[in-house]
């Protein structure tokens, strides 16, 4: 009996680790191969404070949480510069270093002998020793860990994490400080892993480095992926299956090493089979999680704003004043000037177009204005404020946002989530309100949902709010991108080829929307190849070639100029 309770306890410990890793891996898309090392650091922190300092159990737990959180949060900074396979490698290196440290720093960790005689915790005046006594404690802790992980994952904060997973650049472009969110998710993940770690140390009463190997890290990643990423239930099921089932093999009448090999074989084969036939895991991410709430709030939104245009007029500036001024921006890539002393002015409330042949540097101008690329020289003034070289998420905060030529939606999120994620200042994106002001968070969430639906209604896609963004037609994706841009609340909007790649029907819809946005007081700048589009919607146009502005004027006038036609179409075409 005790054996089975022990198995349950171990499953719960692994489930906690899995849940903490799932936040990183499933929600934020950050593959960490050092989770076992975090687990180990937490366990050592608890064991050492208990053995050497004589701290009682809840204190050792706090010590473990504190140390692991700081460590995991600190890892974020080197991890910021790398993604994908590099992050796998970086965390793998970290795992190996920490593991070797546990082995070699004998003075502290006792090396491979490990730390023994870790005191059992005393709960309600009773010292708990057996698996049966431990079960309630571990179960309660597991419940807490899952609650926290769930709260973080399925919240505005989790939405931003998923956005980072799906497209990091686009997440910056909607005004989110990606660095901050990565620090948060690494820290929370570390803290939750530490809970499992401290319990593990006290439960086993003995730890050594061999519990915290690279194989264990890999096992945890596999467990999360097999269970289902971005779904905590999946992690629990996964832990039960992949930790619990192998225990059954113990009852085979065979030598231990053969049983171990057999278990590994089954595990490996399962891993291959799952990746091949069910890559989304046992319990897949709930993609269209919102239809029910959508319906409800849709009705609310319809009642609240029956006719008014969704775009709120932003009367921040007087009509004629320039909203955005760029002064002699210069950017070189190698020997090529992508922008060469380029100056332009976006008058408030007007639509300005940037035209020119391919490679003229139009998109680079957007990158320079919004902070995705820092200029070598020159200034950018937004409403008179110098925003040169600020991070993209800051420029969005000051009211300047952009779309991308290649749309860049968060494809594995619903349309509604895409738009909601862009709304600034959500209390649920910060940990403190998320946990300590749940009512305020929930109320804000309802408001933001209504707001996002308004934007979707504005672009005519309210009925697709529950659909996965990646499943939409390309033209619809462009409309969602526009709704997402409007949701940032920015009043200077840079649209990179808003009408390219879609058919006539969508072009006219998008043009109509751009006109309405400008009429509502927003300042718009578009990069566009289609000269008909430019003439139809722009008040003014700048003509660019090789990083310079050649001329400016009314679009019709520019179109009529034979010299520009020659540059644009090549010789003879004009």
């Amino acid at each position, binding site marked *: 009996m005790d054996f089975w309770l022990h198995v349950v306890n171990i499953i719960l410990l692994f489930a906690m680790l899995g849940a903490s890793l799932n936040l990183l891996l499933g929600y934020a898309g950050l593959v960490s191969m050092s989770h076992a090392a975090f687990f180990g650091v937490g366990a050592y922190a608890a064991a050492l404070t208990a053995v050497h300092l004589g701290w009682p159990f809840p204190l050792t737990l706090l010590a473990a949480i504190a140390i692991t959180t700081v460590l995991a949060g600190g890892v974020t900074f080197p991890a910021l510069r790398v993604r994908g396979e590099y992050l796998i490698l*970086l965390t793998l290196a970290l795992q190996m270093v920490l593991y*070797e440290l546990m082995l070699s720093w004998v003075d502290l960790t006792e090396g491979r002998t490990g730390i023994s005689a870790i005191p059992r915790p005393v709960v309600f005046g009773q010292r708990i020793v057996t698996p049966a006594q431990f079960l309630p404690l571990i179960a309660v802790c597991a419940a807490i860990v899952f609650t926290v992980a769930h709260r973080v994952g399925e919240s505005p904060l989790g939405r931003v994490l998923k956005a980072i997973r799906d497209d990091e650049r686009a997440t910056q472009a909607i005004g989110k400080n990606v660095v901050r969110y990565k620090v948060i998710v690494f820290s929370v993940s570390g803290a939750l892993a530490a809970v499992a770690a401290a319990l593990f140390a006290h439960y086993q009463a003995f730890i050594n480095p061999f519990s915290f190997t690279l194989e264990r890290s890999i096992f945890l990643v596999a467990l999360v992926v097999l269970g289902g990423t971005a779904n905590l239930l999946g992690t629990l099921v996964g832990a039960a299956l992949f930790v619990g089932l192998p225990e059954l093999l113990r009852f085979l009448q065979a030598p231990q090493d053969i049983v171990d090999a057999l278990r590994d074989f089954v595990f490996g084969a399962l891993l*291959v089979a799952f*990746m091949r036939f069910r890559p989304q895991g046992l319990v897949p991410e709930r993609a269209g999680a919102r239809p029910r709430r959508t319906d409800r709030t849709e009705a609310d939104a319809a009642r609240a704003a029956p006719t008014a245009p969704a775009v709120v007029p932003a009367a921040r500036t007087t009509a004629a004043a320039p909203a955005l001024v760029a002064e002699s921006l210069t950017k070189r890539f190698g020997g090529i000037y992508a922008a060469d002393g380029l100056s332009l002015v976006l008058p408030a409330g007007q639509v300005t177009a940037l035209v020119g042949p391919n490679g003229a540097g139009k998109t680079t101008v957007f990158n320079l204005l919004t902070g995705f690329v820092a200029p070598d020289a020159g200034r950018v003034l937004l409403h008179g404020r110098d925003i040169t070289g600020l991070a993209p998420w800051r420029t969005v905060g000051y009211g300047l946002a952009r779309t991308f030529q290649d749309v860049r939606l968060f494809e594995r999120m619903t349309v509604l989530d895409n738009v909601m994620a862009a709304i600034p200042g959500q209390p649920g994106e910060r940990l403190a309100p998320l946990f300590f002001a749940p009512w305020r968070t929930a109320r804000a969430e309802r408001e933001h949902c209504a707001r996002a639906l308004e934007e979707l209604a504005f672009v005519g896609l309210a009925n697709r709010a529950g659909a996965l963004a990646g499943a939409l037609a390309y033209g619809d994706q462009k409309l969602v991108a526009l709704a997402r841009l409007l949701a940032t609340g920015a009043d200077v909007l840079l649209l990179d080829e808003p009408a390219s790649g879609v058919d006539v029907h969508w072009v006219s819809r998008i043009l109509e929307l751009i006109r309405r946005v400008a009429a509502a007081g927003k300042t718009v700048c578009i990069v566009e190849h289609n000269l008909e589009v430019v003439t139809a919607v722009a008040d003014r146009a700048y003509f660019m070639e090789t990083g310079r502005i050649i001329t400016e004027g009314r679009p019709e006038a520019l179109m009529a100029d034979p010299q520009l036609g020659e540059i644009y179409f090549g010789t003879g075409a004009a």
Partner: protein
Amino acid sequence: MSWGLIFATTKIFHFSHALTLTFAVYAAVLSSGAWGLPLPLALAVAALVGAGVGAATELYLYRPLRRVQATQLNIFLASLGLLIAGQSLVLVVFGPQARAFEGFPVQGITLGPVAFTTIEALWLAVAWVLIAALIGWLWLTRNGLAIRAVANNPELAQCVGVEHERVFLLVFAVGSALAGVAGTLLALRDTASPMMGVHPVLSAFIAVFLGGIGSIPGAAIGGLVLGLAENMGGLVLPGYWQGVIAFVVLFIVLVVRPSGLLGTRRR
């Protein structure tokens, strides 16, 4: 280097390269044990088996996975799963004990202050020959050109008539053959065991990332830096640090210069 070739071309995080190596080495060790094959023949067996296993992995694991558009993490995990399963299989079939390669004379050679064994001399010679041959093959032949094209831009290569599936298969075969040879050479000194492939492959991909992905000279230099750091570090630091040095170096390079020592900066 063989791992680097595969990774650069196919962008597959081919962890089970370690399994290919193990299979190839076992084939060589067992065949030479059973039929008393001389070393060059045993190496040829290793290369053949390696190529076969590698190509089979590509055909029956990675290709179907690409068909269902698996993410890179999924492919990585599948590769890992294959490695775990395969290693356990070797363990069950051949037992956990290490197997020595018999019949190759080991002698110490002393050149001034430098002492090494015949095995190490052989390693050096074979390694340089293989590196030179690989570079020559990549730069001088039509197949080499196709591989470099696919590594650079698979879609474009497809457009000009290079079939990337075929190139992938070729790369897997060649890379795996190299791994088989390298593994057998290692086994000459260190014996063969079920888990033997993991460490060399870990070192290999550290070398690849150090040197910069897609750069064959980079991988060679990365390997050199890694070897030097490990051994020089051993002189200064206490012995138990030696295992960490590779990873510390990797960590630092990744933080300071993520594109690798010789890699081109990607935006």
